[in-house]
C-alpha cells in the first residue's frame, strides 16, 4: 500500500518523513519524531492526553492522521518552556499542585496554550478548558486553581 511523504513543522522544526496512511499523528509525533511528551490515553478522543496544537488550534492527535498534517504546523508540550524556563501555564499547574502522575498533564497544558491565543475571557476559559480532559489522579481542584489563576493574571496584565 502506498506510503505518503509528509513535510511538517513541529515545534518550529520542519521534518520530512514517510508514513503509512493509517499512522496517527499521536504515533507519528511519539515514535517517528521521538516527541514523547504527547501521551496516548484512549485513542478515541475522549481523554485528552494527546492534545496538541494543529495550526494553533487544540486537537486530538489520536484523531488526526499523520498524512493530514502535511504542510501544516504542529506544536507539542515540548515547545512550551521558553529557553528552559517553564511557561506561565506550567508554573501555575506546578504551584497549584495540578498534577500527580503527570500523564494527562501535557494535553491539558496544550489546551491552556490554545486558550491563551483565543480572545476568550478568563471566565470562558476557566469553564471550558477542562471540558475535554480527564485526569484520574487530582480530582481537578489543583488544575482548576491553576487555570483560574493563570488566566486571571493574564487578563489583569492586558
Amino acid at each position, binding site marked *: *500500500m502506498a506510503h505518503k511523504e509528509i513535510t511538517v513543522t513541529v515545534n518550529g522544526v520542519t521534518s520530512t518523513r514517510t508514513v503509512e496512511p*493509517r499512522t*496517527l499523528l499521536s504515533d507519528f509525533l511519539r515514535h517517528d519524531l521521538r516527541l514523547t511528551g504527547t501521551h496516548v490515553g484512549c485513542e*478515541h478522543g475522549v481523554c*485528552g492526553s494527546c*492534545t496538541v496544537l494543529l495550526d494553533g488550534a487544540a486537537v486530538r492527535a489520536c*484523531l488526526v*492522521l499523520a498524512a493530514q498534517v502535511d504542510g501544516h504546523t504542529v506544536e507539542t508540550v515540548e515547545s512550551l518552556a521558553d529557553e528552559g524556563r517553564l511557561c506561565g501555564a506550567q508554573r501555575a499547574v506546578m504551584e497549584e499542585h495540578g498534577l500527580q502522575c503527570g500523564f494527562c498533564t501535557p494535553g491539558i497544558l496544550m489546551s491552556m496554550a490554545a486558550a491563551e491565543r483565543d480572545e476568550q475571557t478568563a471566565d470562558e476559559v476557566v469553564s471550558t478548558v477542562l*471540558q*475535554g480532559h480527564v485526569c484520574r489522579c487530582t480530582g481537578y481542584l489543583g488544575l482548576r486553581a491553576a487555570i483560574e489563576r493563570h488566566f486571571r493574571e493574564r487578563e489583569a496584565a492586558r
Partner: protein
Amino acid sequence: MKPAVFEYQEPRSLGEAVAVLATPGRECVVLAGGQSLVPLLNLRRVRPRIVVDVNQVPELTGVHITDDVVRIGAMTRLRDIERHAGLRSALPVLPETAALVAYPQIRTRTTIGGSLCHADPAAELPTLAVALGARLLLRSARGDRIEDAESFFAPPGTSRRPDELLTEIELPRRQGFRFRFEEATRSGGFPLVGVCLGVRVDERGLVAEALVAAGGVAEHPVRLPAGERLLHGRDLAGNVDDVVSAVSAVLTPPTNTHATAGYRHALLRTLLRRAAAALATGGGN
C-alpha cells in the same frame, strides 16, 4: 487499537473528490473532521479500502447568509460556526447548538457535514437540522440532488449514497422565530436526548407557528408535528402537559446500554417542558 490498512486519497477539488467516490467497486469512506470516523477506524469497527480525505477541498468550506437562508459548506468546522459573527445574528441557534457538541478540542476539527453524515441519532446538529427544515446538497458524478433533513436521516444511517458527497447545508433562517435547544447528556457529555423547539409568537403572545424536533428518542432525529399542531395558538407560559404527552405518545424510543425507552420518554417530556418554559420567559434565540 490501530486502524486496519487503508489507501489514502486526498482530492484537491470538488470535482476530484466526486470522481474518486465514483470509481466503481471502491469501498470508500469520506474523512471530514474525523472526530467520529477516526475512533471507528482505530477500533477497526470501520474498515474501508479507501479513505477519501476532503479536508483539502476548498469549495466545501464557508458560510453564506442571505435574507432567507444560511448556506454552510459541509466542511465548515464547528469552532468556526460557533464563533461566526454573522451566524450569531442571522441564526443564533446554530452556533449555540454547535457549542453543545462534544468538547472544544473536538470542535476544532468536527465539521457540520461530518456530523450530519455520521447521523448519531442523539447528536445535536442532526436534530437541529430536522427542526429547522434544513436542505442538504449532495453531489455525485451523476449530478446534484437536494434532500430534506427529515428524509436524509434514514436508519441505520442516512440516504447519502456511497458515491455522493454532502457539499452544503441550507438552513432556513426562520425569521421571527425564537429557538431553544435543550439536551440531557450522559456522564462524559455524550448526548442522550435533545429537543429543539422553535416558535413564532403573534402580537398577543400566542404561538403562531411552532417547530419541534427531538434526538435520542428514535432511530433517527424526528420532527414532531403533533406537538407543533398542539402548540398552535397557545401561551407557552401555560401548561403544556398535553403537548408533551402527545409528542411522547407517538414515539417508541430504543432501549440500550445508555438509557431505557421509559427514561428517554421522561427526558423528552422534561426537555420539551423546559424549552417551552425558557421561550415563555424570553429565553432562546
